[in-house]
């Protein structure tokens, strides 16, 4: 990526309403700089996944502009500017692990030797060397999600979009993958937009947490996470970590309009 603009995502006055009349997102303004790790957090129905999909041009915005790498989101998608990771790994079970990782490279018409070299590199990055010829269903959920991350990063996209990637995993696997994701992020040097339900996960991973409120989806507050990098297992035990978790929780409660019951957000933990 030569001469990449430092602003990777620029969203101005974004509104999304569905045909049913529901306004999913209202007047969203958000800028994301290169190498940032931004989490979108909020209650169910706040439109955080919708926002992620609009950035990725998987669904259109109703009004407003979304620029990725200084280009319209549509052009950015055509230019393969982002990789995406969903909640389920969406691996093709008729392909081996290696051929799943190389899938986007085939679309980009890389030759076989180049593909093989990159697949090897990516599987090293996500620590799955040795599993090249396994089938996805032979791997655990956490390993499948790592394959999915390797696939998303295989073509060096400037932006990594992650839609609750660890939502279906148990707490221990999730915490380990959080650590691994940060290491991958540091090594790959990409920018990440990360949708999550989990406050500790958002605080632990992010450089900024975007707290959203529901009906209509709006940005309630943006919280800078000033925890030192690189984050380690002990980061979760620092007082500052708990302070930030508390501020996110309060911002969420304020967004719901009931600051009196800050810990009661039913689908957050």
């Amino acid at each position, binding site marked *: 990526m030569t001469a990449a603009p430092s602003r990777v995502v620029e969203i101005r006055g974004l509104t999304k309403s569905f045909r049913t009349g529901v306004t999913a997102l209202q007047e969203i303004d958000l800028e994301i700089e290169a190498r940032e790790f931004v989490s979108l957090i909020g209650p169910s129905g706040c439109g955080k996944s919708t926002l992620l999909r609009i950035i*990725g041009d998987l669904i259109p915005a109703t009004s407003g502009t979304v620029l990725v790498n200084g280009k319209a989101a549509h052009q950015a998608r055509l230019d*393969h500017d982002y990789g995406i990771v969903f909640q389920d790994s*969406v691996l*093709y*079970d*008729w392909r081996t692990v290696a051929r799943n990782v190389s899938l986007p490279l085939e679309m980009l018409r890389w030759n076989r030797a180049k593909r093989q070299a990159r697949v090897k590199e990516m599987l090293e990055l996500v620590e799955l060397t040795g599993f090249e010829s396994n089938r996805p269903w032979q791997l655990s959920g*956490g*390993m499948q999600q790592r394959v999915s991350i390797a696939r998303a990063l295989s073509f060096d996209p400037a932006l990594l979009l992650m839609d609750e990637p660890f939502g279906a995993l148990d707490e221990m696997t999730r915490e380990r993958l959080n650590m691994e994701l940060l290491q991958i992020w540091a090594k790959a040097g990409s920018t990440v937009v990360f949708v999550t339900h989990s406050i500790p996960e958002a605080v632990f991973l992010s450089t900024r947490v975007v707290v959203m409120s529901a009906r209509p989806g709006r940005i309630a507050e943006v919280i800078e996470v000033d925890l030192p990098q690189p984050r380690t297992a002990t980061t979760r035990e620092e007082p500052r970590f708990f302070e930030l978790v508390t501020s996110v929780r309060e911002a969420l409660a304020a967004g719901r309009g009931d600051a009196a019951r800050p810990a009661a957000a039913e689908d957050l933990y």
Partner: protein
Amino acid sequence: MAQVAAASPSEERRHRGVARRVAATRAATIVLVLAALWGLWEGYKWLWETTGWTWPFVVDDTTMPHLHDIVGAFGDPATAGGPALIHPLLDAAWFTAKEALAGFLLGAAIGFALAVVLAHSRLLERGLLPYIVASQTVPILAIAPMVVVGLGSKGVEGWKSVAILAAYLTFFPVAINTLRGLKSVDARALELMHSYAASRWHVLWRLRVPASLPYIFVALRISATASVIGAIIGETPASIQEGLGGAIVNFNQYYSLQPTFLWATNVICAALGISFFALVAITERLVLRRAPENIA
């Protein structure tokens, strides 16, 4: 966490032992079922003959020959002084197999192509699908003479016309099932392809077709037997003598004299259908090496 460790030699040996036991069980099942069918046939025949029951039909050596007589008929001369029946029957089976195979391949290709076109255009799907369904309500006996005579006047050999009739029965299940498979692709997987800005061609061959292979193979199993039926039935109105259809018509006429010949022909017809089915099943097993729960 790495529960995918390569199988150790002892595990492999155990696996092979299990596989052998499974094969033995399967062979034993086949033998048992055949024995039971033999028992049913001969038991029924014996009971009806000794009691003299005539309902629903009179049982004697003409209506229900002994099974050993049917098997023995393979060795009887087909015509006075001619070769054993098995030889002309195998020749006929080969002839019909050729028609059925050509029809099966042609029909499968047409069915697949149709499904691909319909999957990409809702307008065409709405417009054409009713007629495709309607095509299957026309009895093959009604169109067979038209196809055979029509193509025959253009100098097309009879067996090729029959192959087209077999294709007429084959394409339908393939088209319907493939269409369903192509359209049942996981929405997330499609979004993923979309995120790569994949062309329709890439989405088709890298996602839709591989994802619908289980559907396609279900259809191919149905079509495999249907193509044999189509070939046999197609020969009759086409007055083609060389195949199994011709043999059936022929031995039908001599049924009161030689009932075992018709039964023996039926056995060969069934065997041909079963081998077509087995061929598809084996291919499926080679092609679809995926999650065990996804193997139909």
